[in-house]
């Protein structure tokens, strides 16, 4: 509601009903009986209800999605997590260009208008930061699902297939890698192997039906469904085709996974299957009686085929119901009916994807990767329900 509309509503409300009360200091005033007061007029660009408070949790170079407050599988664009390497640039779409060069038949530049004229493709896909849950390697650090898992979000993305645009420039046969470069103040770069991405990669200009948000790469970003977010270069200005990885800082010293023997894994693009119960989750308060356990599961290798839930710390697992649609490389909502009888409980979820991969326990993950990997933590998350109904992060 705009300020002007709010004032109109208030004036009308006061004329009819003298008593107005606010739920909290930041909530807008609301009439006792909204059926007896004319409502607000139409507005050019809508806003959520003034009573809704969910926000991202910003750090210095990232912000976390409030997963515990969301429903379904789509993340509102305004709440999509952020990660940037030197701020969010302001880019005039009329002046933005995509340059494609290197091992191509014809180096070309494309305007945003050019890119929108190509045949378009839309799909839903999650994007997860490689560092999502990185704080959980050593200890149960995050207090809420937002803090433990908030660097993943799902949107409907629209753009042109990378393959379509590469066909336009004429890909040379020896081209096997592509450098993608952003137009931000980090000129963020990643080398992308072509073969595994050619049938799904998109050059996106839209998110959930409207133009990309600035934080998600306005006016143009790369989408590599199922791959770590940093490879989905935002503010995309350049694609250079080559026959080897370019070995940028981001894929040598930064987004590499250090193993216990001191050797690091490189080009660890895929985000493996992972799930988290978003309600009840850390920081929430349970009431005795019926509780629908709700959560999200996803896999960078395809569809989620099964989610199991345990309420006793992993002794008994029962299959949760998957909410349609269940889409590949996309958040999948699961639900599990439960009666809470006031006893201590440990809630866990474990997902399986279409390759047969099962989300590992924390113990099994750390046995292989140790504590210094930083990236790609996808272990089973545990939430402890205390007798008083409070829920907290707990590592089983």
């Amino acid at each position, binding site marked *: 509601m705009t300020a002007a509309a709010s004032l109109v509503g208030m004036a009308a409300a006061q004329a009819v009903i003298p008593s107005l009360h606010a739920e909290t200091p930041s909530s807008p005033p609301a009439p006792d009986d909204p059926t007896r007061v004319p409502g607000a007029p139409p507005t050019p660009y809508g806003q959520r209800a003034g009573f809704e408070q969910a926000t991202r949790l910003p750090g210095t170079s990232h912000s976390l999605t409030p997963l515990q407050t969301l429903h379904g599988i789509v993340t509102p664009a305004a709440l999509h997590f952020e990660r940037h390497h030197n701020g969010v640039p302001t880019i005039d779409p009329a002046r933005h260009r995509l340059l494609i060069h290197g091992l191509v038949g014809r180096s*070309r530049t494309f305007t945003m208008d050019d890119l929108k004229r190509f045949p378009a493709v839309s799909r839903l896909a999650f994007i997860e930061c490689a560092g999502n849950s990185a704080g959980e390697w050593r200890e149960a650090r995050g207090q809420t699902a937002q803090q433990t898992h908030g660097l993943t979000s799902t949107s409907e993305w629209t753009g042109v297939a990378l393959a379509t645009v590469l066909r336009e420039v004429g890909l040379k046969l020896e081209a096997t890698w592509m450098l993608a470069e952003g137009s931000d103040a980090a000129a963020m770069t990643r080398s992308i192997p*072509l*073969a595994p991405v050619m049938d799904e990669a998109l050059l996106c200009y839209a998110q959930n039906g409207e133009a990309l948000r600035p934080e998600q790469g306005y006016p143009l970003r790369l989408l590599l469904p199922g791959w770590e977010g940093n490879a989905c270069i935002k503010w995309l200005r*350049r694609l250079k085709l080559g026959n080897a990885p370019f*070995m940028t800082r981001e894929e040598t010293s930064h987004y590499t996974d250090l193993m216990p023997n001191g050797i690091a894994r*490189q080009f660890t693009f895929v985000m493996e299957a992972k799930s988290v119960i978003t309600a009840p989750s850390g920081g929430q308060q349970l009431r005795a009686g019926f509780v629908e356990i709700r959560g999200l599961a996803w896999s960078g290798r395809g569809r989620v085929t099964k989610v199991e839930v345990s309420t006793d710390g992993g002794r008994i697992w029962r299959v949760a119901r998957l909410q349609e649609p269940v889409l590949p490389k996309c958040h999948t909502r699961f639900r599990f009916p439960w009666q809470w009888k006031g006893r201590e409980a440990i809630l866990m979820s474990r997902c399986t994807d279409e390759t047969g*991969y099962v989300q590992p326990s924390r113990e099994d993950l750390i046995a292989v990767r140790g504590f210094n990997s930083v990236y790609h933590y996808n272990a089973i998350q545990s939430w402890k329900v205390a007798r008083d109904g409070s829920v907290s992060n707990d590592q089983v």
Partner: protein
Amino acid sequence: MIKCRSRLLAAVGGLGVLVACTGSGEAPQEGSGYGLGRPATEAQVKAWDIDVSPTGEGLPPGRGTVEEGGKVFAAKCASCHGPTGLEGPADRLVGGRGTLATAKPIKTVGSYWPYATTLYDYIHRAMPYNTPQSLKPDEVYAVVAWILHRNGIIPEDAVMDATTLPGVQMPNRKGFLPDSRPDVKGE
């Protein structure tokens, strides 16, 4: 339909990619494309083609010494990385050799970075943080030389340029392996 599919396969040849092709023949004719975009000029490519590969491709003319680099570092880098590249608060650049397999690995240029050329690429494109792409090639070569020298990788009298930098052997050059996941078996 068959004609369309074979054209697409030829266009992405060698990649083993199947592109779904449907529709009623409204797609452009072979070889003509959609006619979108325009040829990139040499100046456009030159202005943005800033990446430097491990072979040294992309390194510009210019040169820098350790001594010159010390001055550039003090003026442009030390406020974030500390006077000797150790103190922070931004990423530590020096030391840490022998720590990667310990409980507290220290990942620096000296202990972790596999290619010296990446230093040029990254410093030029992204540093200094508040004024990226503001350093001249001689300044970038010089600060690269200083960081490499502080890590004991090149001698104090070394000169870094497009010829010498790709030849610098980094201590952790063999410290990386390709992704071997899935590596953890769930129950």
